[in-house]
């Protein structure tokens, strides 16, 4: 079986890899690309631990063929912080204790960022429904939702101060 050559962009960096036709995006992220932050919890798109964005849209990378990454932009948890500066979502998760084992956390954070990019002022219910595809077995979701709401508020505050005093 001959392998496919794929050229793509991950977290802003040009990447290329060889893969079997049946390989998933999750497989290549964790394998040849060495980005193990995205996790395999189920391999069937039901747990959300593998959540990444593909051209800005939230997807389960275990349901995307690696070959589909050709020419597209992927962001993973490894691309969320800016250099050494944590994203407000990451900071609020730490502040609220919104993780226990931390295994679902990368997927939840990517999904939560996708939420706030799409809707900067979600209600609690909207946040819960958006994150319904991200299973967490440790926390019961309470502190996760609180952290997401707090990060949303912080980002709205940052945004309005930027708007008040443009650089």
């Amino acid at each position, binding site marked *: 079986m001959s392998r496919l050559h794929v050229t793509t962009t991950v977290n802003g960096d040009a990447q290329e890899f060889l893969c079997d036709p049946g390989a998933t995006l999750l497989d290549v992220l964790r394998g040849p690309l060495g*980005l193990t*932050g995205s996790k395999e919890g189920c391999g069937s798109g039901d747990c959300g631990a593998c959540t990444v964005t593909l051209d800005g849209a939230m997807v389960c990378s275990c349901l995307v063929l690696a070959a589909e990454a050709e020419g597209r932009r992927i962001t993973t948890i490894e691309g969320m*912080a800016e250099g050494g500066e944590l994203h407000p979502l990451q900071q609020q998760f730490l502040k609220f204790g919104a993780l226990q*084992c931390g295994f679902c956390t*990368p997927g939840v954070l990517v999904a939560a960022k996708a939420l706030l990019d799409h809707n900067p002022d979600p209600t609690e219910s909207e946040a819960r429904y958006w994150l319904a*595809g991200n299973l967490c077995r440790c926390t019961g979701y309470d502190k996760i939702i609180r952290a997401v709401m707090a990060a949303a508020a912080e980002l709205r505050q940052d945004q309005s101060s930027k708007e008040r005093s443009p650089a």
Partner: protein
Amino acid sequence: MNAPTGKLANEDGYRVVGTRPVRLDGVDKVTGKAIYGGDFVAPGMLHGAILRSPHAHARIRSIDASAAAALPGVKAVVTGADMPDDAALKAADRTGDTMAIARHSMALDKALFDGHAVAAVAATSPEVAQAALALIRVDYEVLRPVLSIEAALAPDAPLLHPGHVTRGERPGKAEPSNVVGVTTHAKGDAAAGMAQADEVFEGTFSTPPIHQGYIEPHACVAQWNADGQAQIWASSQGQFMIRDQVGKILGVALANLRVVPLEIGGGFGGKTRVFLEPVAMLLSRKAGRPVRLAMTRGEVFRASGPAPGSRTVIRMGARRDGTITAVELDIVLTSGAFAHDESGPALLSATMPYTIENLAFTGRAVFMNMTTVHAYRAPAAPQAVFAVESAIDELAQRLGLDPLDMRIRNVARPGDPGFSGLPLGEVGFLEALEAAKAHPHWTAPLPKGQSRGVGAGAWGNYGGASTAEVSVADDGTVLVAEGNPDIGGSRAGMAMMAAETLGIDYEQVRVIVADTNSIGYSMQTGGSRTTFATGMAVIQACEKVIADMRHRAAMVWGVEDAEVDWRDGAAWCGSGENAGRSLTMKAIARRADQSGGPIAATGALMAQGYLPGVGVHICDLSVDEETGVTTITRYTAVQDVGKAIHPDYVEGQMQGGAVQGIGWALNEEYVWNAAGAMDNPGFLDYRMPVASDLPMIEPVMVEKPSPVHPFGVKGVGEAPIVPPLAAVANAVSRAIGKRMTHLPLSPVKVQAAAAEG
């Protein structure tokens, strides 16, 4: 939310304990850098894969793996014949479960469940490994499977283990059967007590097997060298547990087997035994290279260790004033393919929060053609307590009593004889019940169309062996090494207890979870023991370090050790010409070489002081009788937590355990087809709670410190899963006016019950 700089004291006078600092491993976990079981890569690593029986019960007549072994890229093939034989396994461990663990990990002559490992390969890529599995020919003789408790107990039931002698019985007394063991407990005179009752409830309750549902599947890398030395990198609840179990199974000397703990993505009891490691080791020895073995989600459901299903017959009698006069309980739990008998913990926890004069309990576990069950957070307590707390609710209704008042009337108090007859210590059962009663949730008017249920249940912390090492670096910062995997923030708790003991800031302490060659033995993370027992070891080591530093300061000042105080992270001179002077940790550490050498100490102990904590949960919900869907609208979890070292993580245990219990009550169950294959081995159809199913879970911590722990810690991790099954079922029962006795309360069941009228 960050720790104060140590100058402010909270209401207990602590500077660090009781605050909510950010956890030490936090940045790694929110940036995807933390290395979990499946993330670890060893150079030259091969990929393992396991062939699993598609039959629930079958004799393995032969296995032909020659074509697989010949496939290019395949470096090793293993079957049950490569495992030590029965005699060797029995010799390694005559009374424990070594043989059961070994044979579950790889079948020998019988496949005992759909998913039972029958062969394994190691290859240069996952694709080659899967191709190799497809080339293995297994000749099965399919046997009639045993797929329910009733089937297991039937007189003509096929026997999974014909040679098994039922535990707990007189030798030679019991006929061969599928009963793994029998446990009984009696107190007073149950028949007489029942006769004294004004009201008696009798019912049969059942729960199906369910899974702990950790999001991280099992994974490990093993490397077994030709000279007999081995390493295993794995996520688990205990690296020493892995060493012990693998060492016994494969006859490896413990010092030859180094187990390195990786981060763990949830366990809840399900990762307190090995499944893959013995097989990975055998593959590695044959191949001469490290081998990774991991489970897919389907394999996790089919072949790891879910919680037992149960069938409980209960009779409970009470007087008009609510005093429970007698409880008769007969519980049968599934054990699965091999022996794992949880009837002991079931009986122990059934009525733990209460002092009842007359009890007659029987517990049994039965073999069944499903994967062997294993511990799940307060093992067997939720199942037993579901029946007990439902009975209390029913009697309270019939007697017209407030359900919390009835529980308070029967509550066990400090000094009351506990299950074993020994007096209970400083339990906070009454305080927790009263806190629930005083909580606004209890008296809030019920919104229209909603109903309210309450449940209580307790679990005690294990003590056990823990080791910790504390050392002070030249710059005065402190390093703690301990041996307990961090499943919920315990590293932060250890750092906080060390900082508090030493009188320094939290940020000056770093904690690592060390491998089995780098730290003395520690019993695994589970049993609600880690903050309690390993905390005590950390504190003990810190106290030795303090004594050492006081001594070094005394030498500097030319005074006796006894004249040196330790306060606020410094030694203070109490007498002589240097009276009033102090030396900080940094100042003392800088001169370590000149004052006796490195500053380091070990705490190693058997922690004692078993003390159960109780959870009391209040649940409001609405039931849509047309669809049968239950929606939780408000949930309050009250618990006696002893002393919360880090309140966020204690609250997290309470919230997480409550939600696991809600899933257990409403949706989760193993479903098998008629042939005994699991129909729902995935998260789509094994339905766990998601964020949109739930409201906020309000945690209420009642702090009644344990007298035996320096900071008053009681174990908190397991108790929260015990009350919710009954809290939810009691609310649903009240909603539809019918006692719900068979979990889960899925929409189909609830709709049918509501329609019956």
